[in-house]
């Protein structure tokens, strides 16, 4: 009787140990297409960092002083004069900073393509900063459009006719921010695809 119980208990303990060993040293499933998406994600993030920092720097260094002046007034245009542009510079700097800080999480998703936690974290934060980038880019675009075309009904003159360089630089900054926005959108779409399909 006692022999039978001993054998049964030891085989049960052996079975439990086998299961534990199988769980701890589970073989990694091959990454497959999820790993490819993670690598694309990393590369796109690098591009978005360049685009957003480029937009912020281009806007911040846009400063033009016209070569003529009256006795009291010097004609100068800088991003400081428009609070929308100030918002644009700060917001783009934030977006660029976030993208730099999110690079480690992207690397984690490359190493472990089947882990859902980092991807979910990236989607949530990407969405928030995508909204911020879109908001700053669109509001700056509205001002740039006004500067190019003016508005007859409200008697707003198109200042681009006088401040050509300033206009060109701010327009370039807005375009660069739209590039960052599109890249962020692609990042969100790719992460959600990777989350949604086994």
């Amino acid at each position, binding site marked *: 009787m006692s022999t039978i119980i001993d054998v049964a208990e030891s085989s049960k303990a052996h079975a439990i140990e086998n299961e534990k060993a199988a769980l701890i040293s589970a073989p990694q499933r091959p990454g497959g297409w999820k790993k490819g998406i993670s690598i694309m994600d990393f590369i796109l993030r690098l591009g978005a960092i360049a685009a957003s920092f480029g937009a912020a720097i281009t806007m911040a260094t846009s400063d033009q002083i016209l070569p003529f002046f009256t006795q009291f007034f010097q004609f100068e245009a800088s991003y400081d004069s*428009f609070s*929308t542009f100030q918002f644009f510079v700060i917001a783009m700097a934030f977006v660029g900073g976030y993208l730099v800080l999110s690079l480690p999480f992207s690397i984690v998703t490359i190493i472990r393509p089947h882990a859902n936690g980092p991807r979910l974290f990236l989607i949530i934060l990407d969405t928030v900063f995508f*909204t911020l980038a*879109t908001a700053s880019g669109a509001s700056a*675009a509205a001002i740039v459009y006004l500067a190019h075309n003016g508005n007859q009904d409200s008697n707003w003159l198109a200042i681009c006719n006088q401040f050509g360089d300033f206009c060109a630089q701010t327009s370039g900054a807005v375009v660069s921010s739209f590039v960052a926005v599109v890249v962020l959108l692609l990042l969100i779409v790719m992460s959600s695809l990777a989350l949604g399909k086994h």
Partner: protein
Amino acid sequence: MEKATFVELSEQKISNQNGKMKRGVAVIDFILRLIAIVATLASAIAMGTTDETLPFFTQFVRFRAKYDDLPALRLFVVASAIASGYLILSLPFSILHIIRSSAGMTRVILIILDTVMLASLTAGSSAAASIVYLAHKGNTKANWFAFCQQYNSFCERISGSMIGSFIAIPLFIILIILSALVLSRR
């Protein structure tokens, strides 16, 4: 044998909890979509029906302000209308997710479309917001006059219609986050 049944029971308990969580999230999703529909529709209508004519006029010029006169406000009306139309069309999908908690391709499609709509709504409302800000404050460096001082009710209307879109944008963000949460728990 006993260990096997214990593992099966606990797995079933986890999947029951998962199903309840998905159903709860789907219900919240539906309610938030309804609120967002009301908000975007109200914004579009409030901005789209602006029309103010000042009571004085000269021989050649009649002072009148409509949302049409400013391209950014036109963009805002169009973007809000498209966003509310999309939300109405996505309600059946939301109801489908309540009935059948299928975390399949429909949720991924919904996330993608939600993000695109968030982009267009945010772009339209921030462009309109910068124009409304200019209307209130003007800009002395560029010699842009703040026309709010003359067109009072037009100004109030366009400022008030921004509120609807500023409610809808965080709702969109929460919708996307909720869908991503459900997708990540399978």
